């Protein structure tokens, strides 16, 4: 190969003497590609350059490695950076302008030793090169660019001839090996650049073209580098061949644009985990110029698969990451970057608890254990009595007989096989016999470990994406470098594809298997959803916590729920459906909830399928993977599913609202294609964290929002720089009208500002969360959000808080905090920063300890109350009583009751008396605390005397005051029970307490 390439060069040299037409097509392509790639010198130019440079980084490295062979020569080169730069500059010219006069360029270059001011240089070069053109090739100016290139090449080539020959002699020996490496590297770059596509589309086209460049140029580059080592030659022959120049240029240029890139990355910590980070290593290594740089390059020179790069980067980063790897992965999942990451499989495993990310050192043993376990399972259950040496009676009726087990297993396997035949029939991957074999084995073995539930239809749908992903990753991974076998090689062993898939699948099923538990009338979800729905509804009723009443569930109710669900496990999924429908949907989008109720669409009808299959049938296969990214990353028993369901419903909200039951069912069953599922994911997160009705948000953000805008949205959510503008990312996402649409919303909140609809309130009032686990979820989620948004918890909350505080001047600080939260949540910023730390902590404590809930009816009545609030907005805010009563109003409820006078919601049927009593109690609490404080004040005043006079008598008073203050604190914290006459709604207690002293 080498010899041929050299011959090629020689030929070229010869050819160049000939007329233009005979020139090798190779060069034409190269040139044209270059030109095409640099069509406009707009703002995008820098990006383009970056991409080019990135791609060519490796080239440089390879060059240097080759140079390393002759260390002396290299040092010369690096030291005499001037010379190198000269070449580089010379090379630049052809890229920008087709005609070059090497000499002039070199002069300029000599002035600038460091490449960082490259762009300026380029401009200069342009200026200079133009006159050159005129000189050299006036006649050709009008001709097509490509032709120009060719001609210039030919012209240069003539000059080139001698050098080329010299090069042959010099470079022959060295170049052979290096060329191969180069090509490989360029391939790597190709992959990497492809990964970047989505982020910067412009880059791809350029990088591709540059790839072609590199491929075509590979041999020439090599030679040129060799020659470059012999500086003598270059210096002598000032006229450098265009070909060489080009290659050189690309190589040298790389360094400068990288630095800006890096800076930008640093500025946006959010993106630190994106695939582009793969370059980070490269970039960082290149920033330093000199010997260190060379060392770095040497390292990079061994070919490393992108997977390994990424893997090492995230899990074994030498540079301390801004976030833990887990967070990085999480962020990736939410933003959709994980899609491009080769580590998706591992990320899933981590998310699902299959691996402990904090103990990477144990991974190998973990993997080993998992694989051994699988092997054991396989030995145990895939036992074929036919192949055993001992004789077993095939006709034996004994249950322990291997044959009987074998036959039983055969039955299960048969069912699995039937299902597998129907797994994504459109996807060729799942028609592959090996894959089917693997899947059936995995499912079968899982069924053996799954106890009585065994295998159920639908599980195969959950396995499909996992095995697809793992198969892809394991087959794509290639060990390119010669480094000793590392963890990554151990993990990505295709032999264990099945094992690892199984363990991940098992992890997933840990969360989902309960949803497959048989319903009373044994039926599988897909075939008999309606039947199971009917059966399960009846069962839920018998359980006693009919979901319509579930909002009334107190904490105590929760525990009873738990026990109930344990006894009737098969209800779990149905209860989940009910919960999603009658709690979440009601809370988030009352209008839709009402509509679905009125047209008699049972939530189980569609939610069973959605939940059990994790939306596997609703979206395109690749999208399902993306959704799963988010769901898994969110963790917490995959609670995001609930909110994703709501998100999906709201996506087709308008269509549902306008349709009757037949069409609505049709719409739900045949879910419309979603351009960007991340918008749904994002909305799910919003819904999850907002605690408010999404009706308004939904209205403003209709499905027709363009995919591109959505894409920016998703990023925007996590991008602090965007948040700094003060507008919430979500509002910005929904379009221009969103701010206006939000105004009434927020005003509603402020008018009924006494409604602490926020994280705190959800904690304190479990009535919001009727499900067993939801309380913890929300708590967790809050923490979660905090951690995620640590860098983000900044301006927006601060911006909003003053406004609101102005509006509700009467409200105490706690309320203000709440409002902050509301707004933050709306904005999806999830900032808890606004909360005053002390109060928050205290309140949560007291609630958790009291474990006692008054507010069940309250939130329902809250609707009423909120009505009042809405009507008399100004007055309500000041009245502390309204605080209690409207704790749990969802804005949706408020809205609907407010706007539709004929709302038939059950809550309205409740009598009003509880409200009065509750508010009365709270008033009592307030007064009690106020009076007790009143008592303290004189004591404190006396204590003041003590400080001055040191009298023992006064000292006692002082201590008494302190003890009283402590008592009150304890009451508020919850360690001390409040007096009987006072209710335990400490949230409000706290507010009132705080309020009183201030007033006084």
């Amino acid at each position: 190969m080498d010899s041929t390439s050299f011959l090629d060069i020689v030929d070229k040299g010869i050819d160049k003497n000939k007329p233009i037409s005979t020139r090798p097509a190779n060069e034409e392509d190269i040139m044209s590609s270059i030109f095409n790639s640099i069509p406009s010198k707009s703002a995008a130019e820098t990006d383009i350059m970056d991409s080019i440079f990135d791609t060519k980084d490796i080239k440089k490295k390879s060059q240097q490695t080759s140079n390393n062979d002759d260390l002396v020569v290299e040092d010369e080169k690096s030291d005499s950076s001037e010379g190198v730069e000269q070449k580089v500059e010379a090379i630049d010219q052809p890229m920008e302008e087709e005609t070059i006069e090497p000499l002039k360029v070199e002069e300029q270059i000599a002035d600038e030793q460091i490449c960082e001011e490259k762009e300026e240089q380029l401009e200069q070069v342009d200026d200079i090169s133009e006159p050159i053109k005129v000189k050299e090739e006036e006649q050709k100016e009008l001709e097509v660019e490509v032709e120009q290139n060719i001609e210039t090449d030919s012209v240069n080539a003539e000059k080139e001839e001698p050098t080329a020959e010299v090069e042959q002699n010099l470079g022959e020996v060295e170049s052979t090996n290096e060329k191969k490496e180069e090509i490989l590297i360029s391939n790597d770059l190709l992959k990497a650049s492809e990964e970047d596509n989505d982020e910067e589309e412009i880059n791809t086209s350029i990088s591709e073209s540059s790839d072609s460049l590199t491929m075509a140029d590979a041999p020439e580059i090599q030679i040129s580098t060799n020659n470059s080592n012999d500086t003598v030659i270059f210096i002598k022959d000032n006229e450098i061949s265009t070909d060489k120049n080009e290659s050189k240029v690309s190589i040298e240029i790389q360094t400068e644009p990288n630095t800006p890139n890096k800076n930008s990355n640093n500025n946006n910590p959010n993106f630190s985990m994106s695939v582009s980070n793969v370059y980070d290593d490269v970039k960082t290594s290149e920033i330093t110029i000199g010997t260190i740089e060379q060392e770095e390059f040497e390292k990079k020179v061994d070919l490393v698969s992108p997977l390994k790069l990424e893997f090492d980067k995230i899990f074994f980063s030498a540079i301390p990451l801004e976030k833990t790897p887990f967070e990085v992965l999480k962020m990736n999942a939410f933003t959709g970057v994980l899609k491009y990451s080769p580590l998706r499989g591992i990320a899933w495993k981590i998310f699902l608890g299959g691996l402990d990310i904090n103990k990477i050192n144990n991974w190998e043993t973990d993997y080993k254990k998992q694989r051994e376990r699988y092997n054991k399972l396989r030995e145990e259950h895939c036992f074929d009595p036919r192949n055993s040496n001992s004789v077993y009676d095939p006709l034996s009726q004994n249950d322990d007989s291997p044959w009987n087990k074998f036959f039983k297993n055969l039955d299960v396997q048969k069912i699995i096989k039937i299902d597998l035949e129907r797994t994504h029939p459109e996807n060729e991957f799942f028609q592959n016999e090996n894959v089917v074999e693997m899947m059936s084995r995995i499912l079968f073995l899982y069924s053996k470990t799954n106890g009585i539930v065994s295998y159920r239809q639908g599980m195969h749908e959950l396995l499909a994406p996992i095995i697809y992903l793992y198969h892809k990753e394991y087959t794509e991974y290639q060990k390119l470098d010669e480094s000793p076998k590392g963890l990554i090689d151990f993990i990505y062993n295709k032999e264990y594809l099945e094992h690892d898939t199984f363990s991940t699948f098992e992890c997933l099923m840990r969360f989902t298997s309960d949803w497959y538990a048989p319903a009373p009338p044994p039926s599988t979800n897909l075939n008999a959803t309606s039947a199971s729905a009917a059966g399960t509804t009846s069962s839920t009723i018998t359980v006693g916590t009919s979901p319509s009443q579930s909002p009334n569930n107190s904490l105590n109710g929760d525990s009873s729920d738990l026990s109930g669900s344990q006894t009737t496990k098969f209800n779990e999924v149905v209860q989940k459906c009910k919960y999603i429908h009658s709690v979440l949907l009601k809370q988030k989008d009352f209008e839709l909830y009402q509509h679905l109720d009125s047209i008699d669409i049972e939530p189980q009808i569609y939610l069973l399928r959605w939940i059990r299959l994790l939306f596997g049938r609703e979206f395109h296969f690749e999208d399902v993977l993306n959704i799963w990214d988010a769901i898994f990353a969110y963790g917490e028993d995959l609670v995001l599913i609930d909110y994703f369901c709501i998100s999906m419903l709201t996506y087709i909200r308008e269509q549902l609202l306008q349709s009757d039951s037949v069409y609505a069912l049709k719409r739900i069953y045949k879910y419309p294609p979603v351009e960007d599922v991340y918008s749904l994911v994002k909305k799910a997160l919003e819904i999850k964290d907002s605690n408010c009705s999404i009706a308004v948000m939904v209205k403003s953000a209709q499905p027709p929002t363009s995919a591109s805008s959505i894409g920016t949205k998703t990023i925007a959510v996590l991008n602090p720089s965007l948040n700094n503008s003060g507008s919430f990312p979500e509002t910005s996402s929904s379009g221009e009208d969103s701010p206006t649409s939000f105004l009434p919303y927020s005003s509603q909140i402020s008018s009924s500002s006494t409604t602490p609809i926020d994280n705190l309130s959800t904690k304190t009032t479990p009535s919001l969360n009727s499900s067993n686990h939801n309380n913890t979820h929300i708590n967790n989620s809050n923490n979660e959000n905090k951690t995620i948004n640590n860098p983000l918890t900044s301006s927006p909350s601060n911006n909003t808080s003053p406004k609101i505080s102005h509006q509700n001047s009467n409200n105490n600080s706690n309320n203000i905090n709440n409002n902050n939260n509301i707004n933050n949540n709306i904005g999806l910023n999830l900032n808890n920063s606004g909360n005053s730390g002390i109060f928050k902590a205290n309140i949560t404590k007291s609630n958790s300890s009291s474990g006692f809930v008054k507010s069940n009816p309250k939130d329902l009545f809250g609707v009423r109350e909120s009505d009042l609030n809405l009507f008399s907005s100004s007055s309500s805010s000041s009245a502390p009583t309204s605080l209690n009563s409207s704790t749990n109003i969802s804005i949706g409820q408020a809205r609907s009751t407010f706007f539709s006078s004929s709302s038939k919601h059950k809550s309205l049927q409740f009598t009003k008396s509880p409200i009065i009593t509750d508010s009365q109690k709270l008033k009592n609490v307030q007064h009690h605390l106020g009076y007790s404080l009143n008592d303290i004040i004189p004591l404190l005043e006396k204590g003041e005397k003590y400080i001055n006079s040191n009298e023992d008598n006064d000292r006692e008073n002082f201590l008494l005051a302190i003890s009283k203050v402590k008592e009150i604190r304890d009451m508020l914290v919850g360690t001390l029970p409040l007096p009987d006459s006072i209710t335990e709604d400490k949230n409000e207690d706290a507010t009132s307490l705080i309020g009183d002293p201030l007033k006084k």
Partner: protein
Amino acid sequence: MFIIAIGDIHVPHRSHGIPPEFKKLLVPEKIQHILSTGNLVSKEIHDYFKVLTCDVHIVKGDLDENTSYPDTKVVNIGQFKFGLCHGHQIVPWGDKSSLAALQRQLDVDVLITGHTHKLEVFEANGKLFVNPGSATGAFSNISNDVIPSFVLMDVQSNNITVYIYKLIDGQVKVEKIDHVKQQ
């Protein structure tokens, strides 16, 4: 795939019925085919076979009253051709070369014959010869001392695993013989 070769029942004339130990093993849905060498004699046994599986092949024994049974029958199961014959036509009874002649005549891979009430499973010329004996242990023309037996064949692609069931002293004994079809 499970195939049962069974024959020479002789109920009710020489035996009162299939031993309960065997009946316990022979349950519906486990066996896919029954190849009977005849001499069931009574229709009840035929019905009993039909309960076990719908695919029952019976050839006519010398004492069978049902004249609709054929003398010989060839059944294709999987990759194998099973030849079925009661065996009283083969002279001398149970003679190996005569059996081989019949096997060549029928051009089968497995030849199942009975009549001798003597269990025999052997390979010759790459072919399998099976004599399941008498399932009831009925006496034969030759001997009084007959061990009740039948044969189960597990056909998997190109090999057959033969399980021989014998009732000795009230205990069911199982033996296994592997046979691979020769191309």
